[in-house]
């Protein structure tokens, strides 16, 4: 949260319409994402009630559990969901691999993945963060099951569990786009005039951003809070809906004999009611996708999407090689590694966003971690060093209105020339709260002692410099799991799938 974002929210609250919070798009959007909405049965531990999923707005598939307390029906639901989710992921994976091997044969080698590659980017879009939590727990409750043994399940169920766990863990990585919550993606690009608590409601957020004609965003958001006209996007259902609609319908299904015509009618009316409750959210998630597609992607979006793809393909290969499911809890070393990679991703994502988006960078300018202004003096031919060690070290002076909290010796970089580094030589205050910052540049100017054209900022050019860097950071050294220190419990036991995991109760 920066003052800039807070100001955007204040403007939205004042005008009644959402305001712009970024100038480019920071999430990757797949050409055919899988939209997934889920409902749970109140009171139970992550018991699925229904799901709606599909990779086009027209191809919604509805899954409904007629008796959510029944274990067999839950696993039948998981198997059906597996068909959709792992089916979708499998399609993406095989198309990607075909694309990759084709590229290798063509001798394209390394470099940018071909355009066709991007058409198969696997992406699951859910309405809100709570649905990511639901998928994480659904993954936890299914990934350790076995297709054999005392309580066999459909072989697709444990595979679904592993993929859902992979996606949910990946969603914690800042900047990843494999599993995306629509509310979060929207809040990254628009500021609503309501609080973060209220921003968890997708219908309300979209009300602010994209109100129906004739309504202000504020009025549309208020209307979206009525559970009758704007049913919640899950996973929790509206309690009044539970008591007045769902309870009698589920009871009706239970009263009738399996296979009878009455049963069929009861199941149909249950499916109709749930379908009607999910339909508005379905449209809202696709509307969010449409709105986000309307934004120009930032420069580094495809970089992050590439690392998503690499992780996805790697996990697919691991599964095919018979990899074990993710353990219930990470071992000490694995947890430390994971934390370190999350921190690195956070830092690099923050820097990349700022480099891509002047409005994000402006947040850093406000706090003195960056400044922007015009070049007022430049000496592009200046040389440093002596004799054979002479190097091109141009000087530029930037005049800025921003607060300057850097000092001589600090190393900066400009988003306009990310390969060139700048060292602060001096900062001098000028009249009218302005400052002049003199910088010595190195790198990114070609190999000769004369700078390549355009590689040194010219007088009059407007640009920003920041202390943020997206350079490679050496990750911490972690011991092998066999040498986990005693302070962290010593080496963990080797995971052997125990039958107990597979038969864990789900009641």
């Amino acid at each position, binding site marked *: 949260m920066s003052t800039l974002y807070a100001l955007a929210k204040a403007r939205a609250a004042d005008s009644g319409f959402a305001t712009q919070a970024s100038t480019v798009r920071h999430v990757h959007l797949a050409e055919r994402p899988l939209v997934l909405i889920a409902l749970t*049965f109140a009171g*139970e531990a992550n018991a699925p009630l229904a799901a709606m999923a599909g990779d086009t707005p027209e191809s919604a598939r509805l899954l409904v559990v007629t008796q959510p307390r029944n274990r067999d029906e839950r696993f039948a639901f998981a198997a059906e969901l597996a068909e959709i989710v792992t089916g979708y992921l499998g399609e993406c994976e095989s198309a990607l691999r075909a694309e990759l091997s084709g590229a290798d044969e063509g001798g394209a080698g390394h470099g940018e993945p071909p355009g066709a590659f991007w058409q198969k980017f696997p992406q699951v879009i859910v309405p809100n963060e709570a649905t990511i939590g639901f998928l994480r727990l659904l993954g*936890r409750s299914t990934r350790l099951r076995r297709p054999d043994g005392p309580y066999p399940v459909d072989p697709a169920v444990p595979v679904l569990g592993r993929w859902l766990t992979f996606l949910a863990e990946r969603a914690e990585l800042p900047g990843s786009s494999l599993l995306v919550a629509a509310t979060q993606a929207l809040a990254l690009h628009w500021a609503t005039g309501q609080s973060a608590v209220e921003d968890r409601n997708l219908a309300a957020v979209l009300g602010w951003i994209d109100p129906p004609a004739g309504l202000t965003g504020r009025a549309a958001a208020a209307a979206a809070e009525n559970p009758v006209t704007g049913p919640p996007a899950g996973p929790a259902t509206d309690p009044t809906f539970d*008591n007045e609609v769902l309870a009698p319908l589920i009871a009706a299904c239970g009263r009738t004999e399996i296979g009878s015509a009455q049963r069929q009618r009861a199941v149909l009316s249950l499916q109709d009611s749930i379908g009607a409750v999910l339909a508005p959210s379905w449209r809202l998630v696709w509307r969010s996708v449409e709105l986000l597609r309307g934004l120009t992607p930032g420069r580094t979006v495809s970089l992050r999407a590439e690392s998503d793809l690499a992780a996805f393909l790697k996990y697919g290969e691991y599964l095919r090689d018979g990899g074990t499911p993710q353990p219930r809890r990470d071992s000490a070393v694995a947890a430390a590694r994971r934390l370190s990679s999350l921190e690195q991703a956070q830092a690099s994502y923050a820097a990349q966003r700022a480099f891509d988006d002047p409005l994000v960078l402006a947040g850093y300018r406000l706090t003195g971690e960056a400044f922007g202004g015009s070049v007022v003096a430049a000496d592009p031919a200046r040389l440093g060093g002596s004799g054979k060690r002479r190097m091109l070290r141009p000087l530029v002076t930037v005049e800025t209105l921003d607060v300057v909290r850097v000092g001589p010796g600090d190393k900066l970089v400009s988003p306009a020339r990310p390969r060139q580094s700048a060292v602060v030589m001096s900062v001098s205050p000028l009249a009218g709260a302005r400052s002049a910052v003199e910088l010595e540049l190195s790198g990114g100017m070609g190999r000769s002692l004369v700078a390549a054209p355009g590689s040194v900022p010219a007088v009059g050019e407007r640009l920003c410099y920041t202390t943020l860097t997206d350079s490679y950071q050496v990750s911490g050294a972690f011991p092998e799991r066999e040498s986990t220190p005693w302070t962290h419990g010593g080496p963990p036991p080797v995971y052997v799938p125990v039958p107990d995991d597979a038969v864990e109760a789900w009641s």
Partner: protein
Amino acid sequence: MNAVESRLEHIRGRVAPKSHNARTIAALTSNPGCARRAIMDAAGVDKQRLAAYSGFPAPFGQSQFAITRGNAFEAQVKANGCAELLRLLREHLGLSIPEVSYDDLNDVGGNTGLVVRHVRTRSLLARAVNSGSDAGTLFDHPLLRLQVAGRPVFLEPDLIAFQLGGRFHVVEIKSFAVIDGQADGDKVAAAVIQSAVYVHALRELLAGHGMAEDAVADEVVLVCPENFSNAPTAALLDVRKQLTVLRRQLARLASIESLLDVLPADLTFDLGMDDDGVPSRSPAELRDAIFTVDARYAPECLASCEMCFLCRHEAQGRTETLGREVRDELGAIDSIAAVLGLADGTLAPADDQAEAAGLLRAAARLRRECTGEAA
């Protein structure tokens, strides 16, 4: 009846006071600075009804599925003389309990009157402490009493007080799942504060019998379903911090007089029911009456207070509706119009706003530069 009580009665109007339970008392600690809530709770106002009648019905409800599951889980834990619970207590309190007796205080010889049950609870609990026997005793549905805002409130906990060697442990049974040792943080927090209410009430009761505070343990036993099953698991939770908050808040409610002093003498939230029970007071007039008591709205109220939609409506145009974090970033200035006025330079800052105004102007300038947005 003293002056404070009669004023509270007048504010409530001609309806029976809404009784407190651990949940409502726990909720008192969530927004201690709100005078509106303090007055309404002290007066025993039915906030749900008031909110609905004023045109801003509360967004709360409980699903019957959740209630069914909660009851089923509790019944399961208590089945067969609390067999499951005893197993957990042995494991988690590390006790060897040779023999345990069980007292159900749900009724006294068929009499379910509150006073009778409370008297019975008191005498049984006191006797258990004084006997000093090694045998453990489980007390189911003890009826406790607590002074809230000068009025006695009966608390009907869904709990068992477990006594061993003269020391009590509060046992709270909840039906949310603990998965791989982790549970939903909000739910645990709510359970902990409710348990703290019981610990406090139990201590009050025993203090009446000259018992020291430590007769009731600081740690409560939380019993929840484990993973995705119905099998119960237990954890010990320290409630000392919540007890401190609770005591401070109850002490504040006891001094409700100072809050009443600034209110008009004829203030009432009476709906003006006629003989058929139809309210005759206009909702607008009722809202005006409610607005005479200051509220301190925060978005967190949306999860805990029945009046939240009305207060949010009233707070429109103020930075607190955007959340505390946003408000702080805006220099803790109250009005959104003032924030924008300072940012656009159309409003001259007061002395204490100079720093905030500088930051806001810089932010507005940067926004204009990056988005081309007009001032």
